[in-house]
């Protein structure tokens, strides 16, 4: 491989599998910025976000092998997101930080029962299947808006800018998609 040339996901995984430290460098070059932005959306603190991404890289390094993700970018982003959310929960306990999480949680509360409702046994497998099917049933544009907001925790303005839409359109898509998700969860008796 020529020097200075970045690698694709398959080759990245190959570097991790062969325990080449170049894998970490390349992963950071390829997706470090993206993952830092996800962490920032959650934590709104650059130092926390930086630490999060470094932790995520370590997690990924330790996970591969034996894990072999199909999409390295998605795997790295998921790990970063999870670590960032955990850190957010810890920060919240210490009354630190902010970011998009409170807004996102408030928006997602529209999709589910009122918090005061009777606790129900949550069938996580059924929820996973339902969510997966629901997201795949959406028009690609709507799915992108929804996933960028609720997976990557992007602000509405950033989504609008990236996808070349008005902010009002993004908000409208999010609102309609949340309503449809609520309907689907009700139909599947997951609420």
């Amino acid at each position, binding site marked *: 491989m020529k020097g200075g*040339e*970045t*690698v*694709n996901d*398959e*080759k990245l995984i*190959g570097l991790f599998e062969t325990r080449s430290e170049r894998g970490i460098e390349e992963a*950071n*070059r*390829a*997706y*470090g*910025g*993206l993952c*830092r*932005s996800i962490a920032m959306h959650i934590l709104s603190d650059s130092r926390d976000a930086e630490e999060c991404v470094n932790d995520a890289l370590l997690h990924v390094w330790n996970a591969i092998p034996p894990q072999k*993700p*199909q*999409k390295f*970018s*998605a795997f790295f*982003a*998921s790990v970063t*997101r*999870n670590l960032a*959310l955990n850190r957010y929960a810890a920060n919240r306990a210490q009354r630190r930080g902010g970011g998009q999480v409170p807004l*996102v*949680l*408030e928006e*997602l*509360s529209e*999709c*589910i*029962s009122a*918090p005061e409702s009777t606790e*129900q046994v*949550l069938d*996580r497998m059924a*929820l*996973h*299947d339902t*969510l*997966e*099917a629901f*997201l*795949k049933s959406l028009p*690609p544009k709507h*799915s*992108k808006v*929804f*996933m*960028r907001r*609720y*997976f*990557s925790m*992007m602000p509405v303005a950033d989504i609008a800018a*990236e996808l070349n839409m008005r902010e009002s359109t993004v908000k409208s898509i999010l609102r309609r998609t949340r309503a449809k998700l609520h309907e689907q*969860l009700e139909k599947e008796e*997951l*609420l």
Partner: protein
Amino acid sequence: MKEQDLLEEIGKVSEELIAAHALPDAKRYGEGGAEQSVTAKEQIVMSEKKTEYIKNPFIRALPAIAAAAAVLVAGVIILPKTGLMRTPATSVDSEVETSEITETSDFRLKISKAWMNVIPGAELEHSGNLDVTAELEYAGQDAAPTVWYGGFTLEKNGKLLYENVADGVQPEHFENPAAEPAENGAVIYDKEPEPLPVAYSAQGAVPLSILAPDLDAHWIQNEPGDLMLTVYCRVGSPAAEPITVTAPVTDYEVRDFEPTVALPDLNNWTYYDAKQLIQEAGLLVDKRSAYSDEIPEGHVISTDPELPAELAPGTYVRVIVSLGSGHNIIPVPNFTGMDWELAKTMADGMGLILGKNPVPSSEPEGTVLAQSIEVGTEVAEDTVIDLEVSTGSEQSEFQIRTFRIPFQIPTGVTGQFHIELYKDGECVETGSSFDPEYAAGTTSVAVTVENVADVIAYLVNDKTSAKAEIGICHLDAWDGSFSFDKEINMEEVFRQVTETGTSSADQ
């Protein structure tokens, strides 16, 4: 469910979905963001090479000379280790303008599609397959001859990259030795020959599907020069000297090669077995549910795409899983020996309806003695099951009693009268005639009833047959009681049936 649960579950959707829809372009994120990937770089290089190729004046002339001619030959014919090479008597090659087509080689090769499939993760010298769809056209004046296809070679800058040429009409079977990489990274394979006859269709063209596997894709894409394919044919006879047609391969697209996986028909499999098989094949499952009268609950009704099929990795397979018939099917329990009240409660809870049929029996009253549907029979919700329930007595359930119903006779009434009793519209009893002047102030009629009965009593004037209703009498054989539905006014009744009423002065 809490919103945090939903947020967490969104983070667990498939990597496919995350990669496709959740992540913006990493290149937007500057330092530490992604630079062009190798694949993208390769595509850019390929694109640049195509541009250079088109600018080359010689190359620009080729289309005019060879029309859309380009042949890639699929299949490799083993060459013996002796290195016997084909020396065609007639050939058309890249160094000769193809407009000089001889009488015995009035053929043109037209490529309709060409792909360079890059195999991810493969060693460089085996990293690509060249896959081409082409047609061999006969452009001569005579009727199109039969052509025996004899293989192909692939070269670049005069260096042989791939060779698969038949040795003759009845080629020997050659062994398949290991590949011997050439210095330039080219790979030569010896494989079993494929001397298939190729007949022309009415359109005068023969489709050819050509595959040159295990090439050094990186070298091919980046090495300057033209990729030239030569196809070998024997015209008119399998013993004829072979001719060759050579043309450049242009405009082939580079793409990642994705081997397909085969899935069998999964209909009627259990969902969990089907899901496991699909996921083990590197495919993704999209579960849906539907009612079915034929397919048992939890089993697969159908899939989309329909199986069996060859699918690319990462493909979603929609699996429709049966929820059963949609009607609750209930096995009939054993009510026999149970108390009727308990059986009723149980049936209510199960969605069954019970009918009670009292039966004389020495068993304690209310005991279920028998049921109309066998234990264990599967029935639908709301099915009626009749139960024979003990009355607690072996005696008949019927009580018969004879009543004597008295009627008051007012004074001052003359004439002859009698009383009739009707039950269900029929006269069941006719009392004796009486003369009120001589009666003792009352008369009575005897009637026998079973269990409980209502009878209507009428007063009839024997002379005029005038009839007037006295009233409805309810008789209960069980306890021996009887009573009228209203207070009886016998004077009025007599008045109705006499011409002169109760007064007998005028008679």
